[in-house]
């Protein structure tokens, strides 16, 4: 009997908006790098902790340098993860490296953690002949099949129901893997989000929904995005397990995601994690936040820097030193700069990359369009400096 509810009965018309069913924020680490009282030392060994920390620094350095490069006109566009490194890397680190990651666009930290090389980042950013994406997408639309990181797609939230489907396939395959899907609190307003969560609980799918609530969707503050206290309460609507976590607390993010993964993989219980954080940088290199928020607000959050917080913790444990920090930063800066120089000099992808991969093979009509294009480019080589040499070959 499908409309039988398990709820009780009431004889007075009482309304509720659920605001009293608060979802607390899970925290382990204080900004000074010490644990909150009563929190026990996390189950995180030195090797993994440093792998996480290095990925965070890599992300930060890459972001700083590439924004600068964009400002110099060397790059058309860039997006920073700044402020959200713990939310992204802490969660990825709690997974098996073979679990699938479906990200929004601000999750380069996950790739850095998995071992995407600076070369690989640069090739995508400059869309050169070595870019896996063949120069077709804007900068930051990374992807790696080797690292189980689905290529980024700009339309927001489309990856969320895809993650539910992907994870359903993993469940049928029975290989003990799950999918994590990242998205912003803004993207969670899309219809696709609702579909994804509902289907995930109905079909009992091993998927982790990780919402980066960073306070803004471009200029739109979260307060104009939803009336509720964050995105987490939406889980109630689907009977999905949910946890809210301090997104700047690497230990809490890691611990929560580890527990979530266990539920997902062992019990086919999808989980929603809301990581509370703040987008410290502009939305993208095209954005100027001074039009919609104050420097003071930003300053408050700069104090909560997740990388500094982790560094303090590492130092307390004597797993990290000033010297190591300096060395790492310098090495990375140098690597980024050198790699950038190499990457930007590399030629663009070949002309045929225009027409391949639309289908598994190039259909005849498209091939004909391509042949015509080559003839045209040969006629006006000076108008097509990127491809004139390529157009020479072939018919």
């Amino acid at each position, binding site marked *: 009997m499908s409309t039988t509810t398990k709820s009780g009965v009431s004889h007075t018309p009482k309304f509720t908006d659920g605001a009293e069913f608060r979802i607390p924020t899970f925290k382990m680490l204080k900004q000074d790098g010490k644990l909150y009282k009563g929190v026990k030392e996390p189950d995180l060994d030195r090797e993994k902790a440093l792998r996480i920390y290095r990925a965070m620094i890599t992300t930060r350095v890459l972001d700083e340098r590439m924004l600068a490069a964009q400002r110099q006109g060397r790059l058309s566009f860039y997006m920073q993860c700044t402020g959200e490194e713990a939310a992204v890397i802490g969660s990825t680190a709690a997974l098996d490296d073979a679990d699938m990651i479906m990200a929004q666009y601000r999750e380069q930290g996950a790739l850095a953690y998995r071992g995407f090389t600076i070369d690989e980042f640069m090739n995508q950013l400059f869309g050169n002949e070595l870019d896996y994406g063949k120069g077709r997408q804007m900068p930051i639309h990374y992807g790696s099949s080797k690292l189980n990181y689905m290529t980024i797609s700009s339309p927001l939230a489309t990856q969320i129901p895809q993650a539910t489907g992907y994870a359903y*396939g993993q469940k049928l395959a029975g290989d003990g893997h799950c999918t994590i899907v990242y998205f912003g609190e803004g993207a969670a307003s899309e219809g696709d989000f609702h579909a994804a969560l509902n289907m995930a609980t109905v079909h009992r799918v091993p998927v982790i929904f990780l919402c980066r609530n960073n306070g803004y969707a471009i200029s739109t503050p979260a307060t104009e995005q939803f009336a509720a206290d964050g995105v987490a309460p939406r889980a109630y609507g689907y009977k999905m397990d949910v946890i809210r976590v301090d997104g700047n607390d690497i230990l809490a993010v890691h611990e929560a995601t580890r527990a979530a993964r266990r539920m997902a993989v062992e019990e086919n219980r999808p989980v929603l994690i809301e990581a509370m954080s703040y987008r410290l940088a502009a939305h993208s290199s095209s954005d100027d936040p001074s039009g919609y928020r104050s420097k003071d607000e930003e300053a408050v959050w700069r104090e909560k820097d997740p990388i500094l917080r982790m560094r303090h913790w590492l130092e307390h444990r004597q797993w990290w030193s000033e010297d190591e920090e300096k060395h790492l930063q310098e090495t990375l800066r140098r690597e980024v700069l050198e790699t950038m120089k190499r990457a930007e000099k590399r030629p663009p992808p070949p002309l045929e990359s225009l027409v391949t991969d639309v289908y598994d093979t190039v259909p005849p009509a498209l091939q004909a369009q391509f042949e015509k294009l080559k003839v045209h480019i040969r006629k006006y080589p000076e108008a097509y400096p990127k491809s004139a040499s390529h157009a020479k070959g072939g018919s």
Partner: protein
Amino acid sequence: MAKMNMLQAINDALDTAMAANDRVLCFGEDVGVFGGVFRATSNLQQKYGKSRCFNTPLVEQGIIGFANGLAAQGSVPVAEIQFADYIFPAFDQIVNESAKFRYRSGNLFDVGRLTIRAPYGGGIAGGLYHSQSPEAYFAHTPGLKIVVPRNPHQAKGLLLGAIHDPNPTLFFEPKRLYRASVGDVPEGDYQLPLGEAEILKEGTDVTLLGWGAQMEVIEQAVEMAEKDGISCEIIDLRTILPWDADTVASSVFKTGRLVVTHEAPLTGGFAGEIAATIQERCFLYLESPIARVTGLDTPFPLVLEKEHLPNHLKVYDAIKASVDF
């Protein structure tokens, strides 16, 4: 060989695909225990279990999003949209996602294993929202394949072709023919090629081109025209995207005349693309303007749907006008 109607042929195709490969999954609204509102998925849940054939919540964008993810993962999803009129909430997932998945990733990932089935078309007193023929909405989208079968034999072979094709494919089923069209269907697995039109009848005076339920309409019209001594060539386009312009152009080189018909409204319909392409390729051979016989440029009406639809009389008139130009 067995006599089947189109629904049975489709059901048989799904059964064949599911039996051969346990990664093939069928899902959509009401496709589970009930077997779909038209019963195209009858017995599949019973046969292959609830994890491979199941009801989804009522959310088309979710169904296709889910299917895209499954296909990327390596499963072989065959998603049903209950009526083609209700495919539009999934438009973004199809046009921005399915179609562009391979290209944007440089072939690192693809959803080529995806097939989307949906009943389309008029003539069943369905009014605005149970009658639409949306193929042209998708035909502007490189990366998709679009297939429309005309009878049970074609339906089974083309659906198996679509399921096996390594590109995301929309399979629009002429629901007016679901039970009305009956014919011999081979047993077991056979695949008809995607991207190839089929010449159903050769002729010399005029080429008739259509797909799906319009093929029957064309045949009726041609019967009338041939009584008037007009020799007609009939082509079933079968695949709308990428379409077989060569076969059509060869025919028009010979006949010099082309009549294209579809149920969807005229403006922006796929006949426009065909006419534009053929006037360019066959310019010096054309003896009369390429004619389009289509639905009116209106939403789909109910009571006067007969007046709205491009029936055999309208096609016959167009043949005559083309020959008498």
